[in-house]
């Protein structure tokens, strides 16, 4: 008999692999597998089906992030874990909808754009994505291994054969950070928006 637990553990292995193609393979598999859960939750909470894609993707990314950060301990099935995260996202969405309906339009105009507004957050993410695509691929790799996957310098050296030793890596990392700092600080408004979103 095929073992469900083995399947979950293979998925987790792919998500923690630091290899984009394996991560995308695992996530698109889960996207197909779990869309029914989101569909059912939307029905349960009487929320419009147009939210299905967004809730599904954001929940998957939340699960992914927690797996990479070792916050998912594996004491429940992935589907159960996903269910809890997706339900919380839907409840958040319901709260936002109810707030939106109660907010006075004039008050909203007076207060100006709010970075915690979903639309603004998505726009900011896209701008960050576009900006970081301008840095050198070597820098992107070093910074992602270091600050997203939280790999140690030795682990990063194992994944980047072009860098010969730990001192070279530290120097290169420092230069990459300075390069990125110059880029983001060249636009003060953008820098402030990022600070506010932290």
């Amino acid at each position, binding site marked *: 008999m095929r073992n469900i637990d083995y399947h979950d553990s293979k998925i987790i292995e792919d998500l923690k692999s630091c290899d984009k193609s394996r991560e995308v393979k695992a996530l698109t598999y889960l*996207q197909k597998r779990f869309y029914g859960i989101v569909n059912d939750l939307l029905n349960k909470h009487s929320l419009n089906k147009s939210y299905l894609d967004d809730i599904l993707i954001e929940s998957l990314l939340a699960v992914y992030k927690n797996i990479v950060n070792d916050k998912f301990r594996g004491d429940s099935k992935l589907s159960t874990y996903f269910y809890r995260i997706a339900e919380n996202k839907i409840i958040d969405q319901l709260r936002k909808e109810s707030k939106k309906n109660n907010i006075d339009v004039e008050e909203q105009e007076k207060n100006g754009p709010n970075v915690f507004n979903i639309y603004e957050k998505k726009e900011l993410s896209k701008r960050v994505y576009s900006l970081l695509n301008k840095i050198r691929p070597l820098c992107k790799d070093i910074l992602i291994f270091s600050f997203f996957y939280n790999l140690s310098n030795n682990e990063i050296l194992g994944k980047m054969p072009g860098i010969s030793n730990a001192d070279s890596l530290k120097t290169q990392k420092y230069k990459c950070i300075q390069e990125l700092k110059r880029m983001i600080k060249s636009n003060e408004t953008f820098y402030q928006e990022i600070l506010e979103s932290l």
Partner: protein
Amino acid sequence: MNEFELNEKIELYLKDKLPEEEKEKLLRLINENPDIKSDVEDIRVIKKLIETYKLEELREELQKKSVINSISYRYNNFVKSTYSKAAIIFIAVLSLPLIYLFLIKSDANETLFNEYFQPVTIEVKTRGLPPERGEEIQSAIENYKNNLFGNAVPVFKEYISEYPEDYEIKLYLGIALLGNNEVEEAKQIFTELKEFDDNYYSEYSEWYLALTYLDEDNIDKAKEILMNIQDNNEYFGGSAAKLLKELN
């Protein structure tokens, strides 16, 4: 301490991996030196940017596989509406001559179907069933394995009417129906099993659903499903790639 070492310490501090003694030294430095405080803030921002970037990168990939824009999801919602059902009947009647033409199977597609259609065998547990029922199912499975699908179908159907959530036997039923040329019923079963959340048979069902469309000469639909299998299906990715090459 040079700037590279300071950078490393700040990074470890933000990842909560700096030993306690080193952490206290760094915190004193941060309090005494506004430039170092600013460096810490900058690296905190960079950490956030990298996380945002990585998630956006994956988000873009997942958005390409939008569920709500998928043909099957839109198709399912479309046919549920009353007006669309009336429209379907009207169009079907007008298209009868064309449908007749398209229903004539091409020899090439039939050959491909026969080459790729193989009944999967998975171990079936019959513990917990009454003995005579267990024996019936085992006998039906033997017929299924010997391609005697006509004999297996009625037994599987009767069993599923009593145990509708036995997905293993349901999958066998779908395959036996397909082997017995009862294509529409087979398609319904595979479509149902494919869409279940947390049903690991969805990968098998997706493969057989593609073969069902191939059997019907609906090559575009078969290819669409095969491309998805090629990209996402652990078990049949290789077979789907081979079959796609032959269809193209």
